[in-house]
């Protein structure tokens, strides 16, 4: 059964993969005769350098690579998908998220719909995440990824604040996020709009899942980004006041809500200025539930009991005393 955990070179593969490989191999008889180790296959010339047929490993114990993400299973997943296996679905945020810089700071906006394929999983989720008292981050992509990543960086920023005794800077949050996302090579599917006001002024950045970033005066991300960007491109100007800015952001999010299926429900807005922040949760609710029956709902047909069967899970226990009592 050692074949199950054969180490080809330094990688460990399952039996399935081994069979997959073996089925593609020729079996050179002459080399087998000369080789002292019957399990030592030599590579046919056509075979690629992908398979490093080293010696059979001495032990079945696989030492994990030190630190970081192990990409071994990604190859297996790709192969399984090619074979026709459907990957499990996950909660995505669809989303329209936007940010813009106005006269006194930054305004971030987001919709509140979380989707799981064609189903709305959460009608009122929070997509604007806290990073620091003066920095907030909107997240699009896989909901778990955005939440975990923003949570982790928020934690790191807090420790950094204790160490330095200073307020966090937006560029610090940006660098921590992009380093993390880059090291996961895009597998952490989080597209973020990061905005805040620090000692150097107001800043707005976008971060893509692979780790690239942009610094912009106005930005949109998510499936509704084109709808929102069209509003910004038409109406944005420098030096907007707070009310103008909020109105423009709300308009951009609404454009995403109404024109993109992945975005919907309400508008969340966060206004960050020097020394102050306002989180306007559900600032606008353009999709209220219009009809609710005044009589209420009653279900007349009750559940019918067809059959009753009771199975005790624990057999009766018999106690027999054996041996001496324990000493004190």
């Amino acid at each position, binding site marked *: 059964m050692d074949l199950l955990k054969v180490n080809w070179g330094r990688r460990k593969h399952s039996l399935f993969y081994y069979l997959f490989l073996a089925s593609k191999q020729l079996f050179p008889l002459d080399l087998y005769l000369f080789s002292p180790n019957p399990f030592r296959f030599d590579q046919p010339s056509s075979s690629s350098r992908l398979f490093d047929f080293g010696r059979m490993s001495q032990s079945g114990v696989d030492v994990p690579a030190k630190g970081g993400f192990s990409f071994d299973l990604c190859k297996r997943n790709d192969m399984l998908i090619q074979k026709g296996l459907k990957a499990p679905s996950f909660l995505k945020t669809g989303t329209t998220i936007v940010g813009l810089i106005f006269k006194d700071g930054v305004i971030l906006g987001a919709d509140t719909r979380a989707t799981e394929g064609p189903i709305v999983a959460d009608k009122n989720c929070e997509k604007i995440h806290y990073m620091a008292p003066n920095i907030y981050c909107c997240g699009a992509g896989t909901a778990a990824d955005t939440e975990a990543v923003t949570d*982790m960086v928020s934690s790191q920023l807090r420790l950094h604040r204790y160490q330095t005794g200073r307020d966090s800077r937006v560029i610090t949050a940006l660098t921590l996020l992009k380093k993390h996302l880059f090291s996961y090579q895009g597998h952490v599917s989080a597209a973020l709009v990061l905005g805040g006001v620090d000692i150097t002024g107001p800043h707005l950045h976008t971060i893509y899942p692979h780790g690239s970033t942009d610094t912009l005066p106005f930005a949109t991300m998510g499936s509704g980004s084109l709808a929102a960007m069209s509003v910004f491109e038409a109406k944005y100007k420098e030096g907007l006041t707070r009310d103008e800015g909020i109105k423009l952001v709300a308009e951009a999010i609404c454009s995403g809500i109404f024109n993109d299926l992945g975005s919907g429900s309400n508008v969340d807005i966060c206004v960050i200025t020097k020394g102050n922040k306002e989180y306007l949760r559900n600032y606008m609710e353009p999709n209220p539930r219009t009809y609710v029956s005044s009589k209420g709902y009653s279900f007349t047909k009750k559940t019918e009991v067809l059959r009753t069967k009771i199975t005790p899970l624990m057999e009766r226990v018999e106690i027999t005393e054996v041996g001496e009592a324990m000493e004190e």
Partner: protein
Amino acid sequence: MGDSQYSFSLTTFSPSGKLVQIEHALTAVGSGQTSLGIKASNGVVIATEKKLPSILVDEESVQKIQHLTPNIGVVYSGMGPDFRVLVRKSRKQAEQYNRLYKEPIPVTQLVRETATVMQEFTQSGGVRPFGVSLLVAGYDDKGPQLYQVDPSGSYFSWKASAMGKNVSNAKTFLEKRYTEDMELDDAIHTAILTLKEGFEGEISSKNIEIGKIGADKIFRVLTPAEIDDYLAEVE
């Protein structure tokens, strides 16, 4: 950790059952600057002497009282660099707890984890115990709390405690002056008087440091101006 030559513990038992290194560590603490803490009915105050080695040292850059979390602060007696390392570790542990359980770390938990770190350094190869005793002041759901953590890793909850050079005088003074229903401001006055007891030279806002936490659960280090106000009241 450490070389294979030093993979044995430097803290070994003496024939009388004592750990001599820890005794020495406590001596190091005992020769450090005095610090004390008092638990009031509605808060905790911790204070310390801030005697700088020379008048040329920029006293604003020295901060002996540190935050561990927004509602927990700490002061020490003993070796400053050891304190820095412990503070850094404790902050990280508090943050990890917060991330895992999404609640601010209770004071007892943080004290226990810090004490565990200090104990580890008494039972590992190639390291020496920390030369600091800590006074941890915090306010959480269980109310105001004051803990002292020793180099051995043992910790106790105190109503009032002192450590460092002037410990015996300070503790006697505190025993006389402490009352159960003290309020936070009274506690601050008592703390200043206790520090004054064994103070060499003139006490002023430049050579003491005071931190307090009240029912608002926010730990604050008092500014020199505030300390001056309290000193004036005490006079």
